[in-house]
């Protein structure tokens, strides 16, 4: 497709379960970002990939959060031993990196609810 695709759109999990969220960036976009958006807040940066390299993971809230992009295209955000405070919308964005000042293009997000 033409845009950033995320799956699943909705995910409900019980506290303590592991979840995996998928992101398909726009073809040819080498930069990929994950954000967490809590209710009533703006997106907050989690981590950044340039191709397959994870160059910044400073926003990951704890070591239960893990992201990968093994072939430089599709990325997966994994959350282990989920907690209720992990409930949020998880957004993926991609951008070209030929120039620094490029807008990021977002997917529609995965809404995660932890019961």
């Amino acid at each position, binding site marked *: 497709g033409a845009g950033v695709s995320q799956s699943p759109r909705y995910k409900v999990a019980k506290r303590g379960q592991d979840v995996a969220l998928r992101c398909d960036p726009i073809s040819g976009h080498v930069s990929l970002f994950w954000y967490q958006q809590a209710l009533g807040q703006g997106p907050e*940066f989690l981590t950044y990939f*340039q191709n397959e390299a994870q160059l910044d993971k400073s926003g990951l809230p704890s070591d239960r959060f893990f992201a990968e992009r093994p072939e430089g295209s599709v990325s997966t955000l994994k959350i282990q031993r989920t907690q209720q405070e992990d409930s949020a919308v998880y957004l993926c964005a991609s951008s070209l990196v030929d120039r*620094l000042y*490029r807008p990021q*293009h*977002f997917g529609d997000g995965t809404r995660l609810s932890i019961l």
Partner: protein
Amino acid sequence: DQQVKQNSPSLSVQEGRISILNCDYTNSMFDYFLWYKKYPAEGPTFLISISSIKDKNEDGRFTVFLNKSAKHLSLHIVPSQPGDSAVYFCAASGGNSGGYQKVTFGTGTKLQVIP
């Protein structure tokens, strides 16, 4: 520590009138600013941006103004249309020597354009 602030959670404007959305920032290292528009259940969509070397950027009905000394920017929509009703996020990046945009978002302003 909210580095990008949108102090008005909501705004109502009559169709055809001007909408003015405001944003303040505290980090003097920010040098690239963006506005995103978000409809319910969708990801943010890039609207317009401005770099710190400019004080105005215009794209059709949308104009962004930047006042660096006041650390303030605003988005003007003229004329406002019902389809403009959405949540608008102000975002900023800069001061990152890694060659990518680590974007910080505000909390958003919900605009309602009344027909």
